[in-house]
């Protein structure tokens, strides 16, 4: 059983880190451990959790800002925002079903993993909306970067480095986000019966239209079955989905115009608000893959130029995997039985397509031996090691979580 510490304030957390630094004792950094299966396992005797650093510290709806301690859960934040008609812009996913974990994601973990959902293509990534943060570096020193205002170019933006660093540079204690009004209405244009190439072409046309499409996904029939919003559509071989989020009159107008503009790809059906919302939550959380996932399966999340989506879909199919596409074809979710040969073929296809990949989960026996992120070039490896040393000279924060030996 690992020793776990969960201090309830930043000073307590800083003291734990300073002690670990003095003892040269690595720490596994966690929030609620909802993403524990992601990336590589950390060899550490002790866990340091932010879960007791909880609570929203500022929400100023008219200023579009929210601050919360790192251990605050996403559902709590989403609920507080919804009470004022606002939402998280990047639409971060809840991956606990996909990853087979129990607890809700924390804000700290979501920012540390820079996880964004379908709205990424229109609204930006999770890290794009981090206005400021407090964090403790690997020496136990509390630092602050950014602030609580919507624009800020003062000094080097350490928030960007720390967001997406999976707890390897500093442990975030409080985060300030830009938030936006939630849309009054959503609607989705669905065109069924398209193969992958035609589906991605339809999504490119949708995203190249003047109607401000906020999400664009392609589901092959295996992934689309059992989704209530798509019932009655002749899906085979797949369905292209494009979402509009606006005031009600605009959603009516834009879905109609978009359906007409995409007419050359096939007949479109407009899915109204009540069907559209749960449909995109399912896509956000990668539930089409989670259903039927075996312990022995691996899951990859791959980002490529959107036009390369079909190429990755073909690689997934060749590996006997299941898959679907978000971000207009640019985000490829793949699950397949885990083994080194499949890991190699899928990740090589991602690299060949000019993209990057993340190993989201794999059986415990395989994880230590697999790269979880694309290998670094010698130059970038040197920079990565030096940045790590600039924040965490003793190498005690989540060592090996992203890259073996760093």
């Amino acid at each position: 059983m690992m020793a776990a510490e969960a201090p309830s304030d930043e000073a307590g957390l800083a003291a734990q880190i300073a002690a670990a630094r003095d003892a040269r004792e690595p720490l596994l950094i966690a929030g609620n451990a909802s993403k524990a299966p992601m990336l590589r396992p950390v060899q550490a005797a002790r866990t340091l959790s932010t879960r007791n650093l909880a609570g929203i510290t500022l929400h100023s709806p008219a200023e579009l800002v929210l601050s919360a301690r790192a251990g605050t859960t996403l559902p709590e934040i989403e609920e507080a925002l919804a009470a004022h008609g606002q939402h998280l812009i990047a639409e971060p996913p809840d991956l606990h079903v996909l990853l087979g974990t129990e607890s809700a994601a924390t804000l700290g973990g979501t920012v540390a993993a820079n996880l964004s959902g379908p709205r990424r293509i229109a609204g930006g990534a999770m890290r794009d909306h981090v206005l400021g943060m407090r964090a403790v570096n690997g020496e136990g020193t509390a630092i602050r970067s950014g602030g609580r205002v919507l624009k800020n170019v003062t000094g080097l933006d350490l928030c960007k480095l720390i967001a997406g660093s999976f707890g390897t540079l500093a442990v975030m204690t409080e985060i300030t986000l830009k938030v936006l009004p939630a849309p009054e209405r959503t609607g989705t244009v669905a065109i069924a019966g398209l193969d992958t190439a035609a589906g991605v072409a339809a999504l490119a046309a949708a995203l190249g239209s003047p109607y401000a499409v906020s999400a664009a996904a392609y589901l092959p029939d295996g992934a689309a079955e059992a989704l209530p919003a798509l019932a009655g559509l002749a899906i085979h071989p797949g369905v292209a989905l494009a979402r509009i989020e606006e005031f009600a009159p605009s959603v009516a107008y834009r879905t109609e115009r978009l359906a007409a503009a995409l007419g050359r790809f096939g007949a479109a059906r407009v899915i109204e608000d009540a069907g559209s919302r749960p449909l995109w939550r399912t896509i956000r959380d990668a539930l089409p893959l989670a259903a039927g996932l075996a312990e022995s399966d691996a899951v990859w999340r791959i980002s490529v130029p959107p036009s390369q989506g079909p190429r990755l879909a073909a690689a997934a199919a060749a590996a006997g995997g299941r898959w679907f596409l978000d971000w207009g074809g640019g985000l490829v979710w793949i699950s397949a039985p885990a083994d080194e040969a499949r890991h190699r073929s899928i990740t090589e296809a991602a690299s060949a397509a000019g993209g990057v990949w993340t190993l989201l989960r794999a059986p415990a026996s395989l994880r230590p031996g697999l790269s979880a992120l694309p290998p670094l070039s010698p130059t970038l490896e040197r920079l990565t090691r030096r940045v790590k040393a600039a924040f965490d000279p003793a190498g005690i924060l989540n060592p090996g979580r992203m890259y073996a030996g760093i």
Partner: protein
Amino acid sequence: MIALPEPKAAVVARREAILADLARLVGPDGLVSEPHCLRAYETDGLAVYRQPPLAVVLPSTTEEVAALLRYCKAEGIRVVPRGAGTSLSGGALPLADAVVIGLMRMNRFLAIDYADRVASMQAGVTNLGITGAVSAQGFFYAPDPSSQLACMIGGNIAMNSGGAHCLKYGVTANNVLGLTIVTIEGEIIRLGGTHLDAAGYDWLGILTGSEGQLAIVTEVTVRILRSAEGSRAMLAAFRSNEVAGACVAAIIGSGIIPVALEFMDRPAIHACEAFAHAGYPLDAEAMLIIEVEGSPAEQEDLMSRLGEIVGRFDPLGLKIATTAEESAAIWKGRKGAFGAIGRISPDYLCMDGVIPTSQLSPVLHRIGEMSRTFGLGVANIFHAGDGNLHPLILFDANDPESMEKAEKFGAEILKLCVAVGGCLTGEHGVGVEKRELMGVQFSAADLEQQRRVKSVFDPDWLLNPSKVFPLGATPPVIHAA
């Protein structure tokens, strides 16, 4: 005046030999060394500071930039990167012992892909040039700094430039997908690509807005967006700054995010009207320019929602454009604002602090008081939706006392911004101008962490020295495992 560091005497003494070496690296055609030619590079958009450099080089390729940086690193020569030289914070100000690397010859497009909605170009392409290259297909590049006709994408990366439309579309950092950078060691690194969310640490994020402290950017890949069906502007005039500020909060609170939400106070309205004859309300204390996008019917719907909100704030006037020409007329004064201020004052300092929008009214009130105390006029023009103030302090640079007062006034405004929860700069950068104020916003530990990151990339602190960080401290040393 802000101090510049002592030139390295050993470097200045070797000038002739260095010029010969530089000519070998970029060809005689790429070297500027005659004193009268160097004058063209002695300042930037912060024209009160002037210092001709040791030399200027104008490379044409990434490989030439790499060779130049390898040489400067080996010789211990300081380097100042330069795009179009439009920085308002002295970001491109040379030093007497520094070589300026100007990227204006690197002005070619590399690729435009409408299916993937990306464009790649060299760092010397202008901001407006990007939109110009894709507008025939109905696309645009979103960040739109006021200097967009001249400023270059490489400089936009360095400063993380914003603009009037970034409330809706984000700043430069939110629109960059890939960079080619050259390190001070002369290594060429390609970061990101044409996909979203590059893997590993966020190199794009830390480089964007790093003010030339970390590396030189030679190539850039950005997202391009499809333009909306149309746009329209509205002008609303108010009896006080307080009421206009409350109206801004009400608009944002209503769920409408206009593509632009610009605020002008009385002095700005008068200066712009005298210059542009845009029909601005001279009896108003404050006015807002509000722009929305969409189809004609959608614009109509949003305008009626906005008109209803504005109506609650006892407006002195409300003008809703019905044609593109009327929208252009509303924007005309705002777009000519800097020129207009230039007509009423020999010089002005453009500040760039950001405040929480709830503090708009008390901060403007306090700036008014300071204006009377310092005896210098001030006009306020700013992006109201995101709280990014642009107080323009009017002074006379030929009068040393006026100049000193203007700088003190500016510093007091920025300290006020920080005190109410804001920051020193929203889009212009720290440069030399705000270097010594960094301690107002950051603790010693915050700054030390930033300085360590600087040392990761530039251990000898040769890149764009005497900017961003307060002078004086020795560079931190990073021991990588």
